[in-house]
């Protein structure tokens, strides 16, 4: 099947503008991308106790993500086996059973069918209709990494760890600062009239927008660094199925650099014991600190360190979010605050404050980002956008050779390919993976 856009152009970094608002493209994404990729739905810390559940979506499909009495985390399609009513209509809670509101079939929190009203009269009892072996439809595949729960609608999906590839190295900075790992709060949820790919691309590698889009947060002194231009000293990396951005830290030891971004000593000591040599070297030896990142297709992360009080001190925060596609021109953002579960309580509180000030529904960074993305999406829906190929070639010469070489292992201890300065390498990586999926037909 011919794709409804110029695929060769995408490979060259020239992006047909209408892919950011096109019903036909969106249908293909549903059929060929979200039907196969690993999609983040939550974290085990959101459902710590047996019976705890949250309800999350993969595109239009609703799943109950619950911890059973056996402690196991499962994801069950939220549709009654009988006539299809939504079994659970709350978005979070604790329950031993879910009772369907339509005719009253009930399911244990591990999905097993427990009871049917008038089982004997209506079905001939256990003989006529055995409950044994009947469960809410499980998600075709579920896997976790550092407590992050992912679902794939493809039962033949590769193991999550293989899918992450070397991106796991970087994911650890956000989700494994101690062996205990993170705890999540939230999410804040809101809908934006923007295509889901724009946010994913932005977080993956758009260091170039920071000095301009986010001038105002620098002007009000939210950051210690007086100039947003500092971004160009950072590096972007792509590894496995994800990539991200970093800031260059001032000279110093590992400890000095971690404390520069506001981590207290006990947390630094724990990180030293938790991270690999390579993970420590990216920070301590090479001086790069992770900032925004995206895992294909629609999970993004951010780490930054603003001032949260009238003082020179800064404090780091972590946010995890998904760009959940609603339609070609609409996305639901689910944005969580994440913090190391073992961090001191006062650190957790101030880190939460840092998050609220910077990202999420009220975040001062996020506000200006979304304004851009809404406007872009709106314009991409018109007919002129079908004649325009957007330039996503930053960092490439006309003959496709890179403008700056990849950092050698002596200067960047992390896996994958990293480059200092502005570039759209990661956005191209992301859209190339997107195209890989769209070009692969779903076998009947």
């Amino acid at each position: 099947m011919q794709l409804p856009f110029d695929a060769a152009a995408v490979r060259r970094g020239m992006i047909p503008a209408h892919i950011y608002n096109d019903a036909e493209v969106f249908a293909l994404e549903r059929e060929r991308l979200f039907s196969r990729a690993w999609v983040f739905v939550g974290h085990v810390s959101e459902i710590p106790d047996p019976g705890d559940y949250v309800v999350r979506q993969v595109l239009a499909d609703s799943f109950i993500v619950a911890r059973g009495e056996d402690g196991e985390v499962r994801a069950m399609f939220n549709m009654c086996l009988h006539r299809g009513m939504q079994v659970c209509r709350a978005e979070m809670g604790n329950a031993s059973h879910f009772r369907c509101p339509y005719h009253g079939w009930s399911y244990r929190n591990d999905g097993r069918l427990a009871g049917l009203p008038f089982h004997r009269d209506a079905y001939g009892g256990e003989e006529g209709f055995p409950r044994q072996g009947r469960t809410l439809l499980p998600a075709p595949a579920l896997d976790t990494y550092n407590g992050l729960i992912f679902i794939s609608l493809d039962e033949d999906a590769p193991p999550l760890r293989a899918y992450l590839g070397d991106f796991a190295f970087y994911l650890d900075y956000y989700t494994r600062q101690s062996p205990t790992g993170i705890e999540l709060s939230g999410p804040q949820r809101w809908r934006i009239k923007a295509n889901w790919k724009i946010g994913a691309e932005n977080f993956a590698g758009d260091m170039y927008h920071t000095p301009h889009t986010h001038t105002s947060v620098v002007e009000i002194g939210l950051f210690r660094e007086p100039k947003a231009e500092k971004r160009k000293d950072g590096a972007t990396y792509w590894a496995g199925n994800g990539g991200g951005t970093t800031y260059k830290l001032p000279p110093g030891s590992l400890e000095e650099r971690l404390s520069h971004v506001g981590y207290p000593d006990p947390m630094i000591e724990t990180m030293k014991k938790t991270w690999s040599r390579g993970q420590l070297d990216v920070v301590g030896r090479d001086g790069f600190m992770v900032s925004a990142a995206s895992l294909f297709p629609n999970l993004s992360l951010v780490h930054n360190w603003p001032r949260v009080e009238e003082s020179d001190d800064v404090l780091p925060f972590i946010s995890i979010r998904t760009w959940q596609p609603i339609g070609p021109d609409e996305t639901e953002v689910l944005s969580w605050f994440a913090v190391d579960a073992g961090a001191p309580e006062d650190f957790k509180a101030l880190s939460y404050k840092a998050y609220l000030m910077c990202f999420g529904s009220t975040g001062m960074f996020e506000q200006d980002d979304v304004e851009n993305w809404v406007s872009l999406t709106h314009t991409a829906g018109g007919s002129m956008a079908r004649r325009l190929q957007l330039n996503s070639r930053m960092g490439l010469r006309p003959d496709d050779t890179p403008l700056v070489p990849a950092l050698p292992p002596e200067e960047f201890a992390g896996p994958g390919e990293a480059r200092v300065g502005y570039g759209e390498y990661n956005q191209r990586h992301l859209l190339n993976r997107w195209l890989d999926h769209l070009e692969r037909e779903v076998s009947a």
Partner: protein
Amino acid sequence: MTRATESRLGGHASTIERTGDSLPYGDERHLTAHRWLVDEAYLLDAQDYDAWLALVTDDVHYLMPVRVTTARAAGYDVSPGMAHFDENRYSLSRRVARFQTEHAWTEDPPSRLRHHITNVRTFATPDPDHLVADSAVLLYRSRGDVREPALISAGREDLLRRQDGRWLLARRRILVDDAVLRTQNLAIFL
């Protein structure tokens, strides 16, 4: 649900609560609170945030929890440990300062805002210098020429404090009526 479990950052806030029934509409104190809320709405519509910030106390706590859909029996309907706003004077002042720069793109061109305030009732507190006011707010927010406008409906509980003869906002809790906000951001105040 108690206030302490709704906010992670409100430890500094005044804990004064309402007493008794709502005040009669003719009561001087009710008229004072009502007038204050209406005057404030005009400042917020005009995005006159300097003037607005002058109306909040140094120990202000400005809280907007995240609402969640839960079973009736769950006993809570706000997200544990997560809010949209959980602000003190410093963070409010940064937000205001940002709007005052020339680079707060999300509000340039500005939204057209109308805060509709209704259902106001006022309560006395044990201290004559404090009043509690409940109100409903419906914010109409229109951006650009033909974009769908955004509506935000919320209930608010305010603690007003008389300080040097002026009434100031010491505490606001905004109970928004949506679990999923249908507006691109909260670059506004409620």
